[in-house]
């Protein structure tokens, strides 16, 4: 079955800057699809083009086998990054209003909105203004606003940015539920590690181009790259570069990227020659490692702006 939503050859420039360069991608039904890439990759621009907010310089957006119309787009749901709500408007009022703009009558809109608020644990805040809610709560109201008309396609721009782990878990569940119900969903994120377990299909964007695309597990399995994970720090000088290089060091562990043909056991022994190793494993690349390999990019591009500031 062909995907309901397809984008073909989307290109967009702002002045001299090429923001999107011939992007093809699709959202298959029943799959959690992630549009991923570092900040500035072109994810938000692509989403605006999907929704017709921005007309692309080239390419087309297709829905159900034909070019998407304004009526198609009105039926979809969109949650822009962060804001996207009237902060001085009460929660329930806002949801009902948004649903009515999409053609629902007041009674249906009100019923759906209350249902959603219930599911999102916000029923007791229905009459509060959005500005009186915490960031996580406001995010859930935003999600409700995008979903209140039961859209066949839900598009979320950076839904996980700035959320605490509990909220991330909660939102992941909502996303999965939506998809398991046979509907279509696309979300974007620059936090590759955070969404690694959630994504089923990915489109990785870098500087306006698709650098990797497909079923995430298949992509991982198909990658020739293997990594040796050991607990504790590793001095790069301990290992000859023709065997492995230090890919990443976090507080508790180090990931060594094995060169093609290198023997993981031999590399492990070189570490053990300097200190004991309590935990280790040979693993397929993570999502960020896949991205870095495919984009040929410096790991610095994946540093989260918000984290860098904080």
């Amino acid at each position: 079955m062909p995907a309901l939503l397809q984008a073909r050859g989307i290109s967009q420039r702002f002045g001299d800057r090429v923001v999107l360069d011939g992007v093809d991608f699709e959202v298959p039904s029943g799959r959690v699809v992630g549009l991923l890439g570092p900040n500035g990759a072109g994810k938000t621009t692509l989403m605006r083009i999907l929704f017709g907010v921005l007309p692309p310089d080239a390419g087309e957006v297709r829905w159900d086998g034909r070019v998407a119309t304004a009526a198609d787009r009105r039926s979809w749901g969109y949650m822009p990054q962060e804001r996207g709500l009237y902060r001085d408007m009460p929660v329930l009022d806002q949801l009902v209003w948004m649903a009515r703009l999409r053609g629902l009558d007041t009674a249906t809109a009100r019923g759906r909105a209350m249902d959603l608020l219930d599911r999102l644990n916000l029923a007791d805040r229905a009459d509060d203004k959005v500005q009186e809610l915490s960031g996580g709560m406001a995010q859930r109201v935003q999600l409700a606003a995008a979903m209140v008309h039961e859209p066949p396609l839900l598009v979320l721009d950076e839904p996980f940015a700035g959320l605490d782990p509990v909220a991330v878990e909660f939102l992941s569940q909502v996303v999965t539920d939506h998809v398991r119900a046979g509907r279509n969903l696309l979300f974007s994120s620059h936090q590759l590690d955070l969404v690694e377990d959630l994504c089923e299909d990915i489109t990785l964007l870098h500087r306006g181009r698709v650098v990797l695309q497909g079923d995430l597990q298949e992509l991982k399995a198909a990658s020739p790259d293997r990594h040796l994970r050991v607990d504790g720090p590793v001095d790069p000088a301990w290992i000859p570069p023709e065997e492995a290089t230090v890919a990443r060091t976090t507080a508790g562990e180090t990931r060594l990227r094995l060169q093609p043909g290198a023997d993981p056991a031999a590399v492990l022994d070189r570490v053990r020659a300097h200190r004991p190793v309590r935990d280790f494993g040979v693993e397929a690349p993570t999502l960020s490692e896949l991205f870095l390999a495919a984009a040929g990019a410096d790991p610095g591009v994946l540093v989260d702006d918000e984290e860098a500031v904080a």
Partner: protein
Amino acid sequence: MISRWESVRLVAGREIRQALRGKSFWVTAALFALASTALMILPEVLGGDDHRSYEVAVVDIPEVAAEQLAAIVEAAGDELELVDAASVDEARRLVDEDEVHLAIAADGDDVRIIVQAGEEDDLVLLTRQALASAHLVGGLRDAGLGDAEVEALLSGPTVRVDELDADQESREQAAFLLALSLYFLLFIAMMGVAANVALEKSNRVMEVLLPVAPPGVLLFGKVLGAGAVASATMLAGAAPVLVKLGVGGDLPEGLGAALAGGIVWFLLGAALYLILAGALAALVDRQEDSGVAIGPLSIVLIGAYMLGGTAPESTISRVFGVLPLTSPMVMPARIAVGAASVGEVVASLVLGVLAVVAAARVGGLVYRRAIVRTGRRLKLREVLTQG
């Protein structure tokens, strides 16, 4: 599927509901109603009694002069109290210290009136008349005439003064008040539309709304909502006038015509200014910049207000009363003072309607193009020239 009109209604409805939720609408409407009520009631309370009570110091004046002065002042409906002063110097002191309004000092046949320079013109006149009468009465009595004969001679024909344009002052006041109210309401509504448009652009609500409703619907709904809120405020100010009219009270001359004209031009002005404000505010990326974005409009509005409020009869007002943008302030003021010709009124109306149509086209285009281009402040020219 929802119709365009239904979408406009929903967008306008949200604007109105939000305005009614806020304090500022109620405060403004209450102020308008209070100020207008005060204007309607105060003249009734204060204006009924414009009689004065004069205090006059006298030094050695003949009894007949005092009698005549009292008779003349009372005939004019005012009251007189005479204060005896011992000397001319004391009389001067009393006038100088504002103890009395005026002093009359006689030294034999030499009579002088002492008064602060430039004040009490009416009383000086009455006093001169009284002194002349007293002289006449004295002469007639000396000639042997009785009191009855003297009185008959003195009561000549009654003279009435017809003042032309007696209501001009109140017409000018009506024009000024109207221009001030229109300016105030338009300015508030314009700032509101601009701030809301810039806010929706900066908080990304636009990105959610644009796929749902066309930009023209969003702009027009917003203008309609803000216009309705401003009209409600205007109505709060007009209500006391209408009530007074209903119970048959006297209105300041010119206010009725000015108000009727004011409503027509207010609607024209609101449509024109609010559409343009919405389009200009779409150029900026932050709400704080919305006031700057509509700066040129504010300047035109202030200029038109000053013209309409202070010089509605001038030649320059004749021109700006016809031109769109300025006519909403100037024309009602000209109508109030009775300076507008029928030709001017018609030309002003026709041009005003045309301008609203043009503004809707150009403003809609600018809004549609600018509202989706975020990241920096846009120039009007680049939005108009680049598709």
